[in-house]
């Protein structure tokens, strides 16, 4: 299987014009921005203090005072979702950063070198892929203890081979291009070529994969927190809120519904954004109207 990369030959304004005609992109973009804005606002203001427990107010249903109700410690769920967004975004984003930061150079290097280096790196990749990701994440948190930082590491490690693979496949599709040959004829080293020509041309591919991994990271963080292995109190996290909610589903279903929806909407937004970007930048996938 060979990857085919179409390099769009368009101006930025052309791409933007197209972007804002793409429903998936616009929807995804709006949702993602809203979530980000919510997370930023939470630094400055939340309806209630999420570190303050008011046991007397526990498990109140949605009302004007508490739009999404309160949790088992009387904390405002809306405020917790706002602050929790911070955690989810931070964990997923840093994990993507780790994956990209390590994976992309590895993949690009493997593609540039080829031969034994490539083979060895890909076998290591296979090795990591052979471990069920969640299981390994559980083991990692079992060793280092639960917490947001270890969740980031656990998720980030499994982003590495993903990005390495994507970067390698993308780079392998770029390397046979004539402009690479031209650069080689101009005496550029493979590292220089990787940086100057290969990476910019697979950037969109990585961007799309990045949004996918970002979304998966949010799901993974929620899963780990749900098992009690993610962010620890008093830092609210969406997965942890679901963990707390599951024993109170009958009396306080809002405790499960709203954080769950926050996850769904965020992941949906990111996936739509990724789809939109892929759609806009891949001329072959132009929708027929």
């Amino acid at each position: 299987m060979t990857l085919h990369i179409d390099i769009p030959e368009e101006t930025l304004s052309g791409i933007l014009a197209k972007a804002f005609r793409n429903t998936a992109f616009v929807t995804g973009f709006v949702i993602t921005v809203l979530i980000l804005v919510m997370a930023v606002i939470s630094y400055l203001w939340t309806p209630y203090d999420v570190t303050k427990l008011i046991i007397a107010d526990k498990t109140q249903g949605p009302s004007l005072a508490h739009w999404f109700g309160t949790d088992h410690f009387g904390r405002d769920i809306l405020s917790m979702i706002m602050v929790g967004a911070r955690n989810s975004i931070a964990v997923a984003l840093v994990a993507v950063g780790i994956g990209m930061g390590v994976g992309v150079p590895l993949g690009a290097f493997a593609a540039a070198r080829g031969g034994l280096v490539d083979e060895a790196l890909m076998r290591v990749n296979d090795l990591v892929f052979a471990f069920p990701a969640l299981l390994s994440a559980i083991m990692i948190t079992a060793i280092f203890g639960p917490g947001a930082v270890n969740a980031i590491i656990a998720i980030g490690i499994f982003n590495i081979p993903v990005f390495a693979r994507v970067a390698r496949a993308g780079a392998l599709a770029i390397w046979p291009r004539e402009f690479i040959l031209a650069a080689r004829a101009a005496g550029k080293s493979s590292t220089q070529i990787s940086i100057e020509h290969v990476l910019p041309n697979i950037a969109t591919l990585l961007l799309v994969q990045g949004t996918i991994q970002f979304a998966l990271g949010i799901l993974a963080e929620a899963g780990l927190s749900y098992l009690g292995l993610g962010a620890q109190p008093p830092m609210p996290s969406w997965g942890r809120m679901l963990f707390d909610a599951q024993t109170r589903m009958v009396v306080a279903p809002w405790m499960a519904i709203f954080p769950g929806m926050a996850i769904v909407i965020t992941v949906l937004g990111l996936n739509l954004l990724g789809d939109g970007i892929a759609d806009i930048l891949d001329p072959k996938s132009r929708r027929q109207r």
Partner: protein
Amino acid sequence: MSLLEIDSLSLTIGDTQILKGMELSVAPGEVMGLVGESGSGKSMTALTAMRLLPHAARATGRVTFDGIDILAATEDQMCALRGDDIGMVFQEPMTALNPVKTIGEQVAEGIRWHTKVTRAAAEERARQMLDRVGLPQAKFPLSRYPHELSGGQRQRVVIAIACALKPKLLIADEPTTALDVVLQAQILGLLRDLVAESRMGLLLISHDLAVVTEMADRITILRRGEVMEAGDTARTLSEQLHPYTRQLAQASMHVPARARTHDTSQGKPLIQVEGVTRDYPGRRSSLLKRAAPIRAVDDVSLSMQPGQSVALVGRSGCGKSTLARMILALDRPSSGTIRFRGETITGKSEVELKPARRDMQVVFQDPYGSFDPRQKVEKLVAEPLHVLEKKPTRAERREMVAHALHEVGLDQRDMDKYPHEFSGGQRQRLSIARAIITRPKLVVADEPVSALDVSIRAQILDLFAELNQKLGIAYLFITHDLTVARAITDEVLVMHDGKIVERGKTTEVLDHPQSEAAQALVAAAPDLHRAIARKMQEQG
């Protein structure tokens, strides 16, 4: 009565007008040639006749086949026509066949679908058909998969599929563009015979005036979706009444004006290739048996003088590109040595190669693929400056780029644009600007004009010729197109199966080829002069 009648056909895809008031007809047994440069709407005409247009396309006008209104027919009616009464051959044989089905299945499928015969009967007919197109059962059983065949063989399979049910009309859309000249001649011969045998109408679509002239009874010349001129082939091309027709014909036969000033026999050779061989590891057929390596270049020796323009011609796969890459030190020979200006460049590291790189540059075939779309012209054209001893300042760099652009006929303001803002011909000029910016002694050009339309190609050949004169750059042209070789080179090397089989002055070799390989190339090369002459003769 015409078999296919296209009347005031207009076609839009989205907001783009593709065809405007298109008129065309094909009579039974007639070969109609449809000629035009890229983007003229040739292929869309063919797809309209098949009604295989993209979803967003809207066609108005009249298209009738055998009395049936194609634009109004139901999908079922069209399915009954396609493959049975109208066959179609496509341009790209490498992708036109389903990779996961055997050639037998693919040929028999249409037969079974239309005639409802048993599998065995359909396979028998498929076998006959494949035999007819030159793929005899003994060598090419039905169980072969497409990837086991070469490009020419695959095109034969596609023709077998299209002609399996002896359609009344065969549409061939650039059927030979992806093939080398020798294969092209073979496939065209096959098409001609098949059409004659069963009195098919043939709509032959091509950008190559010579090919169409050789094949067609009548010709339609298309430009930007409009018919420029249509009529009897010989008359149209000999009279050249329409200015566009004349422009096309002249461009096809264009030879740049060159004064031969470079004496080729004296001085130190610029490049010396001595006994160079390049092997690639072969496919392993089993675990234990290591397959014999594939020898791409076999003990080749040659030398070039400074300022000399040399053509390296040969059929596709003969090893000419591999040889060129080794000369450019982008690939390493398995054995033998290459010397550039007397210095060995084989086995040197990138750093050691820097001085050599400064003096040799490359121009590639594809004007689209040879530029990184993410970088601006300034950076792209300046890329070879990387090998200079002293890195130029930014101002110096811009100055050098501006100069190079000027030399290739582009404006210096172009350096702040992206490559996609240029047309194909302009990009090839950029490519040349990049190649000459370091003032090299040698430029290797790998099929530099074969992807260009004829009129553009003439301009680029002129540019090459001009620069050769002005800067004294030596060229090594890699090409399968003898007209290019004839137009611009002093000497020709004919390569076949990894070996150089003939070498000599260009005109001598092309007019009196000695080796079998050279003879085949010369015989197969389409030539507009000859074609028109022949047509005139036929018609008396």
